[in-house]
């Protein structure tokens, strides 16, 4: 049986191995994805991000439990943690908080390290969610830490992005600075049992009031969104990110959160939102692949000797980098 067939049949080992190939950017991974692509486009992709230790994994655990018990949905979880910039290694510890999910055939948890390259991470994350989607998972939940560019890139993948805050970390201001609220469809204030929840909630509310809702949606996915999104700024299509308080260690607020996620999906589907996000995601992916292909082609077409020769001229200040590129591109550059 081919990898594709095995995956469509729900073979978990085949899926696990494909995920590795995708992560390693191996050609077999790409070949399988070509065959699997027609089977994608059904899953609801949910991004969960926020500062370290806010309770993202605990929340994902509870959400997945809820979806299993109440809605019998098939759930995939991709938990992304940073690689050490010094050694390239990583300790991926999100599973520790997800032990309630073990023993359930309809849950698949995969841990992933960022492995340094930003663009590459977004690409492999996108491709891994496609594999889950094709394998028939109804929900694909992607957990990422922090508030950097990689989180924004990964949020672009999701139909619904949850930003998780918690009291007592002193990170409200930081999150706001980093623009993480810009990507939130739903704000979760976790650790609702801790002192200071009211303050965290208040800070978030006032931030949301400051942000102009219409503009927020338009900036949501950056430049491409502006160009491609059909007009969305009618009042009925305006989504104001709700704030949900949770206690992930006890399961409090989880069914309310699941309701909000469902409401957001309905909202996206009732307007152009869902397809707009699909478009953005696929455009980002195609553009990344174009860049990669052009670069590979360039490397194939250009000998190292030629490159070094031209580079030396730049280094000696005989020609500018721009002239060097023109030379190396052999007239292919207008």
């Amino acid at each position: 049986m081919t990898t594709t067939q095995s995956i469509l049949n729900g073979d978990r080992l085949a899926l696990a191995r494909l995920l590795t190939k995708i992560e390693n950017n191996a050609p077999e991974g790409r070949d399988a994805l070509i065959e699997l692509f027609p089977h994608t486009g059904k899953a609801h992709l949910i991004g969960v991000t926020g500062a370290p230790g806010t309770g993202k994994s605990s929340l994902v655990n509870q959400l997945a439990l809820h979806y299993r018990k109440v809605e019998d949905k098939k759930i995939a979880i991709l938990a992304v943690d940073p690689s050490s910039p010094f050694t390239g290694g990583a300790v991926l510890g999100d599973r520790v908080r997800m032990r309630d999910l073990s023993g359930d055939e309809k849950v698949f948890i995969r841990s992933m390290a960022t492995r340094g390259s930003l663009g590459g991470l977004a690409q492999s994350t996108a491709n891994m969610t496609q594999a889950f989607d094709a394998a028939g998972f109804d929900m694909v939940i992607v957990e990422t830490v922090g508030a950097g560019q990689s989180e924004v890139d990964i949020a672009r993948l999701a139909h619904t992005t949850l930003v998780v805050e918690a009291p007592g970390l002193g990170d409200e201001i930081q999150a706001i600075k980093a623009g993480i609220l810009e990507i939130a469809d739903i704000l979760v204030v976790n650790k609702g049992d801790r002192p200071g929840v009211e303050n965290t909630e208040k800070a978030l509310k006032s931030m949301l009031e400051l942000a102009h809702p219409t503009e927020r949606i338009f900036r949501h996915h950056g430049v491409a969104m502006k160009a491609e999104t059909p007009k969305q700024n009618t009042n009925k299509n305006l989504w104001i990110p709700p704030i949900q308080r949770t206690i992930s260690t006890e399961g409090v607020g989880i069914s309310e959160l699941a309701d909000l996620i469902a409401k957001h999906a309905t909202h996206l589907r009732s307007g152009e939102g869902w397809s707009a996000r699909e478009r953005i995601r696929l455009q980002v992916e195609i553009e990344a692949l174009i860049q990669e292909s052009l670069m590979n082609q360039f490397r194939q077409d250009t000998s190292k000797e030629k490159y070094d020769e031209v580079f030396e001229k730049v280094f000696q200040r005989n020609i500018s980098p721009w002239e060097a590129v023109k030379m190396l591109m052999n007239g292919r550059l207008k």
Partner: protein
Amino acid sequence: MAEKKIRVLVAKPGLDGHDRGAKVVARALRDAGMEVIYTGLRQTPEMIAEAALQEDVDVVGLSVLSGAHMALAPRIMELLHANGQTHVKVFIGGIIPDEDLIRLKEMGVTGVYGPGASTDDIIRDIQETVTG
């Protein structure tokens, strides 16, 4: 570009509540450039085999203090094999009597380490068995 990393599941089966040793090893493996999936305390053999499958690891590292290694190790290997993960290498560290060392190896455990073992040895052995 294709970038292969050694992926290791570090698990702590059994009922005792100490995972200091497991954490030390996990960090050492990370510092050697490996990707370590850490699953925490009180893992059943079923949980360990399931995680090893989902994570498509090359190595399962078990930290045992409870003396239950002679029961746990073969059960975990059996489950790994049943899942089709015959290539996965199992390493065990902990308080293990000398006579058990040999028996574990006979059962197919790749590496067994007592309390005095250095993390450098463990790292070297893993690198050799996975890439060598």
